[in-house]
């Protein structure tokens, strides 16, 4: 399996963003990775519905994502991986999936989170996970849409 792109966006596939990113990243499959969403029939149904035409989408648990990455049956997959949070990304990386770069698109504000850009808010758990990903040499860049300039996430969480 080829890793086309890795994105954290707590809305996962939404609107035409998936279409724009799909074109930009030239993927042919979308795998949304979340234990929570994989167990939620309605959210899962919606995600599968809104995947762009011609692109097969899957919603899987973290364990399943690691297993699928290592399965030679999926050698022709050019996959856009979607996550809702960095802790899940870390778990997949620790499971042996070699992400080189992670795009952070949207993590909405909730009470107890710190807003670091217009579209990205983080809590302590997120910061810890991002730091560990950074220590592994993985690029962490904030961009909402493909044409935005890349913002280095680590520089934004230094003082948190």
């Amino acid at each position, binding site marked *: 399996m080829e890793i086309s792109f890795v994105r954290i966006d707590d809305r996962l596939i939404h*609107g*035409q*963003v998936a*279409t*724009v990113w799909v*074109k*930009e990243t030239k993927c042919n499959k979308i*795998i949304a990775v979340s234990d929570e969403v994989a167990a939620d029939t309605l959210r*899962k*149904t919606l995600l*599968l*519905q809104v995947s762009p*035409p011609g692109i*097969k989408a*899957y919603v*899987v648990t973290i364990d*399943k994502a690691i297993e*699928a990455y290592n399965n030679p049956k*999926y050698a022709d997959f050019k996959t856009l991986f979607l996550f809702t949070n960095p802790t899940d990304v870390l778990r997949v990386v620790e499971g042996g999936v070699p992400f080189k770069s992670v795009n952070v698109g949207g993590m909405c504000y909730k009470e107890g989170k710190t807003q670091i850009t217009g579209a990205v808010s983080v809590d302590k758990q997120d910061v810890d996970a991002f730091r560990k990903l950074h220590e592994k040499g993985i690029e962490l860049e904030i961009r*909402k*849409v*493909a*044409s*935005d300039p890349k913002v280095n996430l680590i520089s934004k969480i230094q003082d948190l």
Partner: protein
Amino acid sequence: MIGVIVGTHGKFSEELLRSTSMVFGELENVAGVTFEPGESVNGLVDKFKAALDTIDWSDGLIFLVDLFGGSPYNAASRIAANYENMDIVSGVNLPMIVDVMVNRSTEQLGDLADLAIRAGQDSMKSFRSIKNSQTEEEL
């Protein structure tokens, strides 16, 4: 990059472009033209021409307008009729504009017009009917 002018009844075009930038990001080589109550089609032709002056259309230009046969369509036709590298697509909606933004740097004008129409049509779906026909494939 093919230039884009969105023309509609009322301020719809301006708002459509604002909404497009929410999805796509900053827009370049794009203009919006509004047709306000009481304006003449001649006036609208002038507004389109003024918009055209702000755009680089050396690779072609596509007008995206709301109603087929409406005043924005008619006014755009009067301009497009004089140039080979212009086309007009009616029925503009947000998915259509986003798709045009995504593809206008790599496609030729004729293909872009086809893609725009397909994107507009393909975006119309019923939740219920998809849900009833959906089959899930496991990894």
